[in-house]
Protein backbone atom coordinates (compact mmCIF):
# COMPACT_ATOMS: atom_id res chain seq x y z
CA UNK A 1 0.00 0.00 0.00
CA UNK A 2 2.80 2.38 0.88
CA UNK A 3 4.45 1.77 -2.50
CA UNK A 4 1.19 2.45 -4.34
CA UNK A 5 0.97 5.72 -2.40
CA UNK A 6 4.51 6.75 -3.37
CA UNK A 7 3.90 6.03 -7.06
CA UNK A 8 0.53 7.75 -6.87
CA UNK A 9 2.06 10.93 -5.42
CA UNK A 10 4.87 11.02 -7.99
CA UNK A 11 2.45 10.59 -10.87
CA UNK A 12 -0.02 13.15 -9.60
CA UNK A 13 2.76 15.68 -9.03
CA UNK A 14 4.04 14.98 -12.56
CA UNK A 15 0.74 16.24 -14.02
CA UNK A 16 1.28 19.58 -12.39
CA UNK A 17 4.98 20.01 -13.20
CA UNK A 18 4.09 20.02 -16.91
CA UNK A 19 1.43 22.06 -18.75
CA UNK A 20 -0.65 18.87 -19.18
CA UNK A 21 -2.69 19.45 -16.05
CA UNK A 22 -3.51 23.07 -16.72
CA UNK A 23 -4.34 22.57 -20.38
CA UNK A 24 -6.56 19.61 -19.55
CA UNK A 25 -8.43 21.39 -16.78
CA UNK A 26 -8.97 24.58 -18.77
CA UNK A 27 -10.19 22.75 -21.87
CA UNK A 28 -12.42 20.51 -19.77
CA UNK A 29 -14.03 23.46 -18.01
CA UNK A 30 -14.45 25.46 -21.22
CA UNK A 31 -16.02 22.55 -23.09
CA UNK A 32 -18.18 21.47 -20.17
CA UNK A 33 -19.43 25.02 -19.79
CA UNK A 34 -20.05 25.77 -23.45
CA UNK A 35 -21.92 22.54 -24.25
CA UNK A 36 -24.06 23.00 -21.17
CA UNK A 37 -25.11 26.50 -22.13
CA UNK A 38 -25.15 26.42 -25.93
CA UNK A 39 -25.92 22.82 -26.86
CA UNK A 40 -27.74 21.77 -23.73
CA UNK A 41 -29.82 24.93 -23.48
CA UNK A 42 -29.20 25.33 -19.76
CA UNK A 43 -31.24 28.55 -19.46
CA UNK A 44 -33.87 27.86 -22.09
CA UNK A 45 -35.01 24.70 -20.36
CA UNK A 46 -36.13 26.73 -17.40
CA UNK A 47 -35.29 23.91 -15.00
CA UNK A 48 -32.89 24.13 -12.10
CA UNK A 49 -30.88 20.96 -12.65
CA UNK A 50 -27.53 19.88 -14.13
CA UNK A 51 -28.81 17.33 -16.61
CA UNK A 52 -27.63 19.24 -19.68
CA UNK A 53 -24.19 19.47 -18.02
CA UNK A 54 -23.85 15.77 -17.26
CA UNK A 55 -25.49 14.63 -20.52
CA UNK A 56 -22.37 15.56 -22.44
CA UNK A 57 -19.82 14.01 -20.13
CA UNK A 58 -19.57 10.70 -22.03
CA UNK A 59 -18.75 12.65 -25.20
CA UNK A 60 -16.26 14.96 -23.46
CA UNK A 61 -14.55 12.00 -21.88
CA UNK A 62 -14.47 10.23 -25.22
CA UNK A 63 -11.53 12.34 -26.32
CA UNK A 64 -10.29 14.02 -23.12
CA UNK A 65 -9.69 10.79 -21.19
CA UNK A 66 -7.62 9.13 -23.94
CA UNK A 67 -5.53 12.30 -24.06
CA UNK A 68 -4.81 11.80 -20.38
CA UNK A 69 -4.33 8.04 -20.41
CA UNK A 70 -2.26 7.76 -23.58
CA UNK A 71 0.98 8.63 -21.82
CA UNK A 72 0.53 6.38 -18.78
CA UNK A 73 2.71 3.54 -20.11
CA UNK A 74 3.53 4.46 -23.70
CA UNK A 75 5.67 7.36 -22.49
CA UNK A 76 7.48 5.19 -19.93
CA UNK A 77 8.34 2.68 -22.59
CA UNK A 78 9.38 5.23 -25.18
CA UNK A 79 11.74 7.04 -22.79
CA UNK A 80 13.04 3.81 -21.23
CA UNK A 81 12.06 4.86 -17.70
CA UNK A 82 9.93 1.72 -17.49
CA UNK A 83 13.19 -0.22 -17.06
CA UNK A 84 14.09 1.96 -14.12
CA UNK A 85 10.62 1.80 -12.57
CA UNK A 86 10.22 -1.96 -12.83
CA UNK A 87 13.71 -2.77 -11.54
CA UNK A 88 12.95 -0.88 -8.33
CA UNK A 89 11.62 -3.05 -5.50
CA UNK A 90 7.99 -2.66 -6.57
CA UNK A 91 5.51 -5.02 -8.24
CA UNK A 92 3.73 -4.44 -11.53
CA UNK A 93 0.26 -4.32 -9.88
CA UNK A 94 1.54 -1.60 -7.52
CA UNK A 95 2.84 0.45 -10.45
CA UNK A 96 -0.35 -0.01 -12.50
CA UNK A 97 -2.69 0.85 -9.63
CA UNK A 98 -0.58 3.81 -8.48
CA UNK A 99 -0.55 5.32 -11.95
CA UNK A 100 -4.25 4.66 -12.48
CA UNK A 101 -5.24 6.23 -9.16
CA UNK A 102 -3.19 9.34 -9.92
CA UNK A 103 -4.92 9.80 -13.27
CA UNK A 104 -8.31 9.12 -11.72
CA UNK A 105 -7.82 11.56 -8.86
CA UNK A 106 -6.64 14.10 -11.41
CA UNK A 107 -9.91 13.80 -13.34
CA UNK A 108 -11.64 14.04 -9.97
CA UNK A 109 -9.91 17.38 -9.41
CA UNK A 110 -11.04 18.62 -12.83
CA UNK A 111 -14.56 17.47 -12.04
CA UNK A 112 -14.50 19.14 -8.63
CA UNK A 113 -13.68 22.43 -10.32
CA UNK A 114 -17.12 22.35 -11.96
CA UNK A 115 -18.77 22.74 -8.56
CA UNK A 116 -19.57 26.42 -9.40
CA UNK A 117 -22.19 25.06 -11.83
CA UNK A 118 -23.76 23.26 -8.90
CA UNK A 119 -23.70 26.41 -6.80
CA UNK A 120 -25.25 28.34 -9.70
CA UNK A 121 -28.27 26.06 -10.06
CA UNK A 122 -28.80 26.23 -6.32
CA UNK A 123 -28.80 30.00 -6.61
CA UNK A 124 -31.23 29.95 -9.55
CA UNK A 125 -33.69 27.47 -8.09
CA UNK A 126 -33.95 24.44 -5.89
CA UNK A 127 -32.54 21.40 -7.70
CA UNK A 128 -32.51 17.86 -6.41
CA UNK A 129 -29.03 17.87 -4.89
CA UNK A 130 -29.15 14.12 -4.33
CA UNK A 131 -29.47 13.58 -8.06
CA UNK A 132 -26.60 15.98 -8.72
CA UNK A 133 -24.37 14.23 -6.19
CA UNK A 134 -25.21 10.88 -7.81
CA UNK A 135 -24.43 12.38 -11.20
CA UNK A 136 -21.01 13.51 -10.03
CA UNK A 137 -20.39 10.01 -8.69
CA UNK A 138 -21.52 8.49 -11.99
CA UNK A 139 -19.33 10.84 -14.00
CA UNK A 140 -16.33 10.05 -11.80
CA UNK A 141 -16.92 6.31 -12.17
CA UNK A 142 -17.25 6.63 -15.93
CA UNK A 143 -13.99 8.59 -16.07
CA UNK A 144 -12.33 5.80 -14.05
CA UNK A 145 -13.62 3.13 -16.44
CA UNK A 146 -12.36 5.04 -19.48
CA UNK A 147 -8.99 5.63 -17.78
CA UNK A 148 -8.63 1.93 -17.02
CA UNK A 149 -9.31 1.17 -20.68
CA UNK A 150 -6.81 3.85 -21.73
CA UNK A 151 -4.14 2.59 -19.34
CA UNK A 152 -4.37 -0.94 -20.71
CA UNK A 153 -4.18 0.32 -24.30
CA UNK A 154 -1.24 2.56 -23.40
CA UNK A 155 0.66 -0.51 -22.17
CA UNK A 156 0.30 -2.03 -25.64
CA UNK A 157 2.28 0.55 -27.58
CA UNK A 158 5.14 3.01 -27.43
CA UNK A 159 3.18 5.45 -29.56
CA UNK A 160 0.98 7.89 -27.70
CA UNK A 161 -0.94 8.68 -30.90
CA UNK A 162 -1.89 5.02 -31.36
CA UNK A 163 -2.81 4.80 -27.68
CA UNK A 164 -5.07 7.84 -28.07
CA UNK A 165 -6.88 6.65 -31.19
CA UNK A 166 -7.38 3.06 -30.03
CA UNK A 167 -8.59 4.15 -26.59
CA UNK A 168 -11.06 6.59 -28.12
CA UNK A 169 -12.35 3.87 -30.44
CA UNK A 170 -12.85 1.37 -27.60
CA UNK A 171 -14.52 4.00 -25.42
CA UNK A 172 -16.81 4.88 -28.32
CA UNK A 173 -17.86 1.22 -28.61
CA UNK A 174 -18.70 1.16 -24.91
CA UNK A 175 -20.72 4.35 -25.25
CA UNK A 176 -22.54 3.23 -28.36
CA UNK A 177 -23.21 -0.48 -27.78
CA UNK A 178 -26.87 0.24 -27.08
CA UNK A 179 -27.32 2.52 -30.08
CA UNK A 180 -28.44 1.56 -33.61
CA UNK A 181 -24.89 2.06 -34.94
CA UNK A 182 -23.75 -1.03 -33.12
CA UNK A 183 -27.06 -2.82 -32.56
CA UNK A 184 -28.18 -2.60 -36.21
CA UNK A 185 -25.46 -4.79 -37.72
CA UNK A 186 -25.48 -7.13 -34.70
CA UNK A 187 -29.23 -7.78 -34.79
CA UNK A 188 -28.98 -8.97 -38.38
CA UNK A 189 -26.66 -11.79 -37.35
CA UNK A 190 -27.04 -12.60 -33.69
CA UNK A 191 -29.90 -13.84 -31.48
CA UNK A 192 -31.65 -11.28 -29.30
CA UNK A 193 -30.17 -12.73 -26.10
CA UNK A 194 -26.66 -11.81 -27.25
CA UNK A 195 -27.52 -8.41 -28.67
CA UNK A 196 -29.29 -7.55 -25.43
CA UNK A 197 -26.21 -8.69 -23.56
CA UNK A 198 -24.04 -6.42 -25.68
CA UNK A 199 -26.51 -3.62 -25.18
CA UNK A 200 -26.28 -3.99 -21.41
CA UNK A 201 -22.58 -3.10 -21.68
CA UNK A 202 -23.53 0.38 -22.79
CA UNK A 203 -21.83 3.05 -20.73
CA UNK A 204 -24.43 5.51 -21.94
CA UNK A 205 -27.35 3.49 -20.55
CA UNK A 206 -25.74 3.00 -17.15
CA UNK A 207 -24.64 6.62 -16.97
CA UNK A 208 -28.07 7.92 -18.03
CA UNK A 209 -29.79 5.98 -15.33
CA UNK A 210 -27.36 7.32 -12.73
CA UNK A 211 -27.73 10.97 -13.74
CA UNK A 212 -31.50 10.62 -13.60
CA UNK A 213 -31.08 9.79 -9.98
CA UNK A 214 -31.48 6.03 -10.18
CA UNK A 215 -28.24 4.76 -8.72
CA UNK A 216 -28.56 1.00 -8.73
CA UNK A 217 -26.13 -1.63 -7.62
CA UNK A 218 -25.88 -2.94 -11.16
CA UNK A 219 -24.56 0.43 -12.37
CA UNK A 220 -21.88 0.49 -9.68
CA UNK A 221 -20.97 -3.11 -10.44
CA UNK A 222 -20.82 -2.26 -14.15
CA UNK A 223 -18.34 0.60 -13.76
CA UNK A 224 -16.38 -1.18 -11.04
CA UNK A 225 -16.23 -4.30 -13.17
CA UNK A 226 -14.98 -2.39 -16.22
CA UNK A 227 -12.21 -0.84 -14.11
CA UNK A 228 -11.19 -4.15 -12.54
CA UNK A 229 -11.19 -5.92 -15.90
CA UNK A 230 -9.05 -3.35 -17.66
CA UNK A 231 -6.69 -2.86 -14.71
CA UNK A 232 -6.11 -6.59 -14.75
CA UNK A 233 -5.47 -6.44 -18.51
CA UNK A 234 -3.14 -3.49 -17.89
CA UNK A 235 -1.07 -5.50 -15.39
CA UNK A 236 -0.81 -8.46 -17.74
CA UNK A 237 0.10 -6.26 -20.71
CA UNK A 238 2.83 -4.43 -18.80
CA UNK A 239 4.36 -7.77 -17.80
CA UNK A 240 4.12 -9.00 -21.35
CA UNK A 241 5.26 -5.95 -23.27
CA UNK A 242 7.57 -4.10 -20.90
CA UNK A 243 10.78 -5.07 -22.63
CA UNK A 244 9.65 -4.89 -26.27
Amino acid sequence: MRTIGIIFRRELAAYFTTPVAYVFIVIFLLLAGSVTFYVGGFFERGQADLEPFFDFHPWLYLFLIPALSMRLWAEERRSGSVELLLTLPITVPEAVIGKFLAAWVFTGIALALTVPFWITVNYLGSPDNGVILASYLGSFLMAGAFLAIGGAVSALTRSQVIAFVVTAAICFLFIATGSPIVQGPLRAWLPAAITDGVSSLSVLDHFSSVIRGQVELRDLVFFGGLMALFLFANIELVELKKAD
Partner: protein
Amino acid sequence: MHLIEIEGLSKHFGDIEAVRGISFTVDRGEVVGFLGPNGAGKSTTMKMLAGFLTPSAGRASICGHDVVEDGLAARRRLGYLPEGAPAYPDMTAASFLAFIAQIRGFRGAEARAAVDRAVDRVDLGSVLEQPIDTLSKGFKRRVGLAQALLHDPEVLILDEPTDGLDPNQKHQVRQLIGSMAATKAIIISTHILEEVDAVCTRAMVIANGRVLVDGTPAALEARSPYHHAVYVRAEGKLPASVQDELGALPGVKRVEAAGRADDQGVYVLPQNGADIGPLVRGLLAARGVGVAELRVERGRLDGVFRDITMAA
Protein backbone atom coordinates in the same frame (compact mmCIF):
# COMPACT_ATOMS: atom_id res chain seq x y z
CA MET B 1 27.16 -17.68 -0.65
CA HIS B 2 28.13 -15.68 -3.71
CA LEU B 3 26.55 -12.25 -4.02
CA ILE B 4 25.75 -12.91 -7.67
CA GLU B 5 25.11 -16.40 -8.97
CA ILE B 6 24.18 -17.23 -12.52
CA GLU B 7 23.60 -20.74 -13.78
CA GLY B 8 22.81 -21.70 -17.36
CA LEU B 9 21.10 -18.37 -17.96
CA SER B 10 19.53 -18.09 -21.42
CA LYS B 11 17.25 -15.65 -23.18
CA HIS B 12 15.77 -15.87 -26.62
CA PHE B 13 13.55 -13.37 -28.39
CA GLY B 14 11.63 -15.42 -30.93
CA ASP B 15 14.28 -17.13 -33.00
CA ILE B 16 17.07 -14.89 -31.82
CA GLU B 17 19.19 -16.34 -29.06
CA ALA B 18 20.54 -13.33 -27.22
CA VAL B 19 22.09 -15.20 -24.28
CA ARG B 20 23.01 -18.88 -24.50
CA GLY B 21 23.60 -20.59 -21.21
CA ILE B 22 25.87 -18.27 -19.25
CA SER B 23 27.13 -19.39 -15.83
CA PHE B 24 29.34 -17.53 -13.37
CA THR B 25 29.49 -16.17 -9.84
CA VAL B 26 30.67 -12.85 -8.45
CA ASP B 27 31.85 -12.30 -4.88
CA ARG B 28 32.27 -9.29 -2.66
CA GLY B 29 35.29 -7.22 -3.68
CA GLU B 30 35.08 -8.11 -7.36
CA VAL B 31 34.50 -5.63 -10.15
CA VAL B 32 33.56 -7.57 -13.26
CA GLY B 33 33.81 -5.86 -16.63
CA PHE B 34 31.51 -7.15 -19.37
CA LEU B 35 33.21 -6.65 -22.70
CA GLY B 36 31.75 -7.49 -26.04
CA PRO B 37 30.55 -6.15 -29.35
CA ASN B 38 27.11 -4.59 -29.67
CA GLY B 39 24.40 -7.22 -29.52
CA ALA B 40 26.64 -9.68 -27.68
CA GLY B 41 24.14 -10.20 -24.87
CA LYS B 42 25.71 -7.97 -22.21
CA SER B 43 22.67 -5.78 -21.62
CA THR B 44 20.27 -8.71 -21.88
CA THR B 45 22.21 -10.53 -19.15
CA MET B 46 22.14 -7.41 -16.96
CA LYS B 47 18.41 -6.92 -17.54
CA MET B 48 17.76 -10.49 -16.42
CA LEU B 49 19.83 -9.96 -13.27
CA ALA B 50 17.89 -6.78 -12.56
CA GLY B 51 14.59 -8.61 -12.96
CA PHE B 52 13.45 -6.64 -16.00
CA LEU B 53 13.62 -9.57 -18.39
CA THR B 54 12.49 -13.06 -17.46
CA PRO B 55 15.10 -15.71 -18.37
CA SER B 56 14.05 -18.27 -20.96
CA ALA B 57 16.09 -20.88 -19.09
CA GLY B 58 18.53 -21.09 -16.20
CA ARG B 59 18.56 -19.20 -12.96
CA ALA B 60 20.14 -16.15 -11.40
CA SER B 61 20.25 -14.90 -7.84
CA ILE B 62 21.28 -11.73 -6.03
CA CYS B 63 22.47 -12.26 -2.43
CA GLY B 64 20.82 -15.69 -2.51
CA HIS B 65 17.44 -14.41 -3.72
CA ASP B 66 16.28 -15.82 -7.02
CA VAL B 67 15.57 -12.96 -9.43
CA VAL B 68 12.33 -14.56 -10.64
CA GLU B 69 10.94 -16.48 -7.64
CA ASP B 70 11.99 -13.91 -5.07
CA GLY B 71 12.37 -10.88 -7.33
CA LEU B 72 11.33 -8.23 -4.83
CA ALA B 73 13.97 -9.28 -2.29
CA ALA B 74 16.60 -9.54 -5.04
CA ARG B 75 15.80 -6.04 -6.33
CA ARG B 76 16.00 -4.60 -2.80
CA ARG B 77 19.65 -5.66 -2.58
CA LEU B 78 20.53 -4.44 -6.03
CA GLY B 79 21.49 -1.06 -7.44
CA TYR B 80 20.91 -0.95 -11.19
CA LEU B 81 21.82 1.66 -13.76
CA PRO B 82 19.98 0.82 -17.00
CA GLU B 83 21.65 1.60 -20.32
CA GLY B 84 21.31 5.30 -21.12
CA ALA B 85 20.46 6.14 -17.49
CA PRO B 86 16.72 6.73 -18.01
CA ALA B 87 14.92 8.91 -15.47
CA TYR B 88 11.79 11.05 -15.36
CA PRO B 89 12.83 14.08 -17.43
CA ASP B 90 10.28 16.50 -15.97
CA MET B 91 11.38 15.93 -12.39
CA THR B 92 14.19 17.81 -10.73
CA ALA B 93 17.18 15.72 -9.70
CA ALA B 94 16.24 16.34 -6.04
CA SER B 95 12.62 15.21 -6.35
CA PHE B 96 13.62 12.23 -8.48
CA LEU B 97 16.11 11.01 -5.87
CA ALA B 98 13.59 11.68 -3.09
CA PHE B 99 11.13 9.45 -4.97
CA ILE B 100 13.73 6.69 -5.28
CA ALA B 101 14.57 6.99 -1.57
CA GLN B 102 10.90 6.54 -0.63
CA ILE B 103 10.51 3.55 -2.92
CA ARG B 104 13.65 2.12 -1.32
CA GLY B 105 11.88 2.31 2.03
CA PHE B 106 13.52 5.38 3.57
CA ARG B 107 11.30 7.84 5.40
CA GLY B 108 11.58 11.47 6.45
CA ALA B 109 15.01 12.48 7.74
CA GLU B 110 16.41 9.07 6.82
CA ALA B 111 15.39 9.62 3.19
CA ARG B 112 16.97 13.07 3.12
CA ALA B 113 20.20 11.68 4.57
CA ALA B 114 20.28 8.89 1.98
CA VAL B 115 19.75 11.37 -0.85
CA ASP B 116 22.44 13.68 0.55
CA ARG B 117 24.92 10.81 0.77
CA ALA B 118 24.29 9.74 -2.82
CA VAL B 119 24.42 13.32 -4.08
CA ASP B 120 27.75 13.81 -2.34
CA ARG B 121 29.22 10.67 -3.79
CA VAL B 122 28.50 11.61 -7.38
CA ASP B 123 29.00 15.35 -6.87
CA LEU B 124 25.53 16.40 -7.98
CA GLY B 125 24.91 19.23 -5.53
CA SER B 126 25.07 22.06 -8.04
CA VAL B 127 22.19 20.87 -10.25
CA LEU B 128 19.79 19.40 -7.69
CA GLU B 129 16.97 21.83 -8.37
CA GLN B 130 17.13 21.60 -12.17
CA PRO B 131 14.78 19.44 -14.21
CA ILE B 132 16.68 16.34 -15.33
CA ASP B 133 15.67 17.16 -18.90
CA THR B 134 17.88 20.25 -18.88
CA LEU B 135 21.00 18.54 -17.52
CA SER B 136 24.08 17.68 -19.57
CA LYS B 137 24.74 14.06 -20.46
CA GLY B 138 27.36 13.80 -17.72
CA PHE B 139 25.00 15.04 -15.03
CA LYS B 140 22.18 12.81 -16.27
CA ARG B 141 24.47 9.81 -15.95
CA ARG B 142 25.40 10.91 -12.45
CA VAL B 143 21.72 11.18 -11.50
CA GLY B 144 21.39 7.58 -12.67
CA LEU B 145 24.40 6.55 -10.60
CA ALA B 146 23.09 8.37 -7.52
CA GLN B 147 19.81 6.50 -7.95
CA ALA B 148 21.63 3.16 -8.11
CA LEU B 149 23.83 3.90 -5.07
CA LEU B 150 21.21 5.50 -2.90
CA HIS B 151 20.48 2.51 -0.67
CA ASP B 152 24.15 1.45 -0.52
CA PRO B 153 23.37 -1.93 -2.10
CA GLU B 154 25.65 -4.96 -1.85
CA VAL B 155 25.33 -5.63 -5.56
CA LEU B 156 25.72 -2.99 -8.25
CA ILE B 157 24.98 -3.56 -11.93
CA LEU B 158 25.91 -0.64 -14.14
CA ASP B 159 25.21 -0.78 -17.87
CA GLU B 160 27.75 1.47 -19.59
CA PRO B 161 28.26 3.83 -16.65
CA THR B 162 30.76 6.05 -18.49
CA ASP B 163 29.19 6.09 -21.94
CA GLY B 164 29.07 9.60 -23.33
CA LEU B 165 31.09 11.18 -20.55
CA ASP B 166 34.15 13.36 -21.12
CA PRO B 167 37.55 12.08 -19.97
CA ASN B 168 37.38 13.89 -16.62
CA GLN B 169 33.91 12.60 -15.89
CA LYS B 170 34.99 9.09 -16.88
CA HIS B 171 37.86 9.31 -14.46
CA GLN B 172 35.51 10.46 -11.70
CA VAL B 173 33.08 7.60 -12.26
CA ARG B 174 35.93 5.07 -12.33
CA GLN B 175 37.25 6.43 -9.06
CA LEU B 176 33.79 6.17 -7.58
CA ILE B 177 33.50 2.53 -8.66
CA GLY B 178 36.99 1.84 -7.35
CA SER B 179 36.15 3.36 -3.96
CA MET B 180 33.14 1.08 -3.55
CA ALA B 181 34.76 -2.07 -4.90
CA ALA B 182 35.95 -3.54 -1.60
CA THR B 183 32.51 -3.83 -0.03
CA LYS B 184 30.36 -4.78 -3.01
CA ALA B 185 30.02 -7.09 -5.97
CA ILE B 186 29.95 -4.92 -9.07
CA ILE B 187 29.29 -5.66 -12.73
CA ILE B 188 29.84 -2.98 -15.34
CA SER B 189 29.56 -3.21 -19.10
CA THR B 190 31.73 -1.14 -21.35
CA HIS B 191 33.10 -0.70 -24.84
CA ILE B 192 36.19 1.01 -23.52
CA LEU B 193 38.99 -1.47 -23.02
CA GLU B 194 41.15 0.82 -20.94
CA GLU B 195 38.27 0.99 -18.49
CA VAL B 196 38.62 -2.71 -17.78
CA ASP B 197 42.24 -2.14 -16.95
CA ALA B 198 41.41 0.91 -14.85
CA VAL B 199 38.63 -0.45 -12.62
CA CYS B 200 37.97 -4.15 -13.11
CA THR B 201 39.43 -7.03 -11.15
CA ARG B 202 37.98 -9.42 -13.68
CA ALA B 203 37.20 -9.19 -17.37
CA MET B 204 34.54 -11.21 -19.12
CA VAL B 205 34.43 -11.18 -22.90
CA ILE B 206 30.97 -11.95 -24.20
CA ALA B 207 30.01 -12.52 -27.83
CA ASN B 208 27.03 -14.22 -29.44
CA GLY B 209 25.49 -14.76 -26.02
CA ARG B 210 28.39 -16.78 -24.60
CA VAL B 211 31.22 -16.02 -22.19
CA LEU B 212 34.37 -16.52 -24.25
CA VAL B 213 36.98 -15.43 -21.73
CA ASP B 214 36.76 -14.91 -17.98
CA GLY B 215 39.95 -13.79 -16.27
CA THR B 216 41.90 -10.90 -14.83
CA PRO B 217 42.64 -7.94 -17.12
CA ALA B 218 46.33 -8.95 -16.86
CA ALA B 219 45.55 -12.44 -18.12
CA LEU B 220 43.66 -10.88 -20.99
CA GLU B 221 46.62 -8.67 -21.81
CA ALA B 222 48.91 -11.71 -21.70
CA ARG B 223 47.04 -13.12 -24.69
CA SER B 224 48.26 -10.24 -26.81
CA PRO B 225 51.23 -10.78 -29.17
CA TYR B 226 52.47 -7.49 -27.78
CA HIS B 227 52.53 -8.79 -24.21
CA HIS B 228 56.12 -8.24 -23.00
CA ALA B 229 57.08 -6.91 -26.42
CA VAL B 230 59.95 -4.41 -26.26
CA TYR B 231 59.63 -1.09 -28.01
CA VAL B 232 63.00 0.35 -29.10
CA ARG B 233 63.72 3.74 -30.58
CA ALA B 234 67.37 4.38 -31.33
CA GLU B 235 69.07 7.74 -31.58
CA GLY B 236 69.20 8.14 -35.33
CA LYS B 237 68.23 5.10 -37.35
CA LEU B 238 68.54 1.59 -35.99
CA PRO B 239 71.05 -0.22 -38.28
CA ALA B 240 69.47 -3.03 -40.33
CA SER B 241 72.14 -5.46 -39.14
CA VAL B 242 71.24 -4.87 -35.48
CA GLN B 243 67.59 -5.24 -36.35
CA ASP B 244 68.33 -8.66 -37.84
CA GLU B 245 70.35 -9.63 -34.78
CA LEU B 246 67.43 -8.61 -32.53
CA GLY B 247 65.18 -10.90 -34.53
CA ALA B 248 67.61 -13.78 -34.04
CA LEU B 249 67.78 -13.50 -30.23
CA PRO B 250 66.49 -16.54 -28.33
CA GLY B 251 62.84 -16.10 -27.31
CA VAL B 252 62.20 -13.46 -29.96
CA LYS B 253 59.49 -14.13 -32.49
CA ARG B 254 59.98 -11.23 -34.87
CA VAL B 255 60.76 -7.55 -35.15
CA GLU B 256 58.27 -5.15 -36.65
CA ALA B 257 58.23 -1.46 -37.44
CA ALA B 258 56.08 0.75 -35.22
CA GLY B 259 54.04 1.51 -38.29
CA ARG B 260 53.55 5.24 -38.04
CA ALA B 261 55.34 7.55 -40.43
CA ASP B 262 56.69 9.77 -37.66
CA ASP B 263 57.80 6.85 -35.51
CA GLN B 264 61.23 5.37 -36.27
CA GLY B 265 60.95 2.78 -33.47
CA VAL B 266 60.51 -0.98 -33.73
CA TYR B 267 58.69 -3.59 -31.68
CA VAL B 268 60.56 -6.74 -30.71
CA LEU B 269 57.90 -9.40 -30.19
CA PRO B 270 58.57 -12.32 -27.81
CA GLN B 271 57.57 -15.95 -28.21
CA ASN B 272 54.86 -16.89 -25.68
CA GLY B 273 55.33 -13.72 -23.70
CA ALA B 274 58.94 -14.51 -22.78
CA ASP B 275 60.82 -11.84 -20.84
CA ILE B 276 63.22 -10.56 -23.51
CA GLY B 277 63.91 -7.08 -22.10
CA PRO B 278 67.41 -7.81 -20.66
CA LEU B 279 68.54 -9.58 -23.84
CA VAL B 280 67.43 -6.72 -26.06
CA ARG B 281 69.04 -4.14 -23.80
CA GLY B 282 72.27 -6.16 -23.66
CA LEU B 283 72.51 -6.52 -27.43
CA LEU B 284 71.93 -2.81 -28.04
CA ALA B 285 74.64 -1.93 -25.51
CA ALA B 286 77.07 -4.45 -27.06
CA ARG B 287 76.56 -2.95 -30.53
CA GLY B 288 76.97 0.58 -29.18
CA VAL B 289 73.49 1.71 -30.32
CA GLY B 290 72.32 4.88 -28.53
CA VAL B 291 68.85 4.27 -27.15
CA ALA B 292 66.38 7.19 -27.14
CA GLU B 293 63.50 5.15 -25.77
CA LEU B 294 63.01 1.59 -24.58
CA ARG B 295 59.96 0.15 -22.86
CA VAL B 296 58.26 -3.17 -22.24
CA GLU B 297 54.67 -3.35 -23.46
CA ARG B 298 51.89 -4.90 -21.37
CA GLY B 299 49.80 -6.02 -24.28
CA ARG B 300 47.04 -4.56 -26.38
CA LEU B 301 43.52 -5.29 -25.23
CA ASP B 302 41.90 -4.07 -28.43
CA GLY B 303 43.79 -6.66 -30.46
CA VAL B 304 42.94 -9.41 -27.97
CA PHE B 305 39.33 -8.29 -28.00
CA ARG B 306 39.21 -8.43 -31.80
CA ASP B 307 40.86 -11.84 -31.95
CA ILE B 308 38.49 -13.34 -29.38
CA THR B 309 35.27 -11.85 -30.65
CA MET B 310 35.95 -12.24 -34.38
CA ALA B 311 36.83 -15.90 -33.92
CA ALA B 312 33.55 -16.55 -32.16
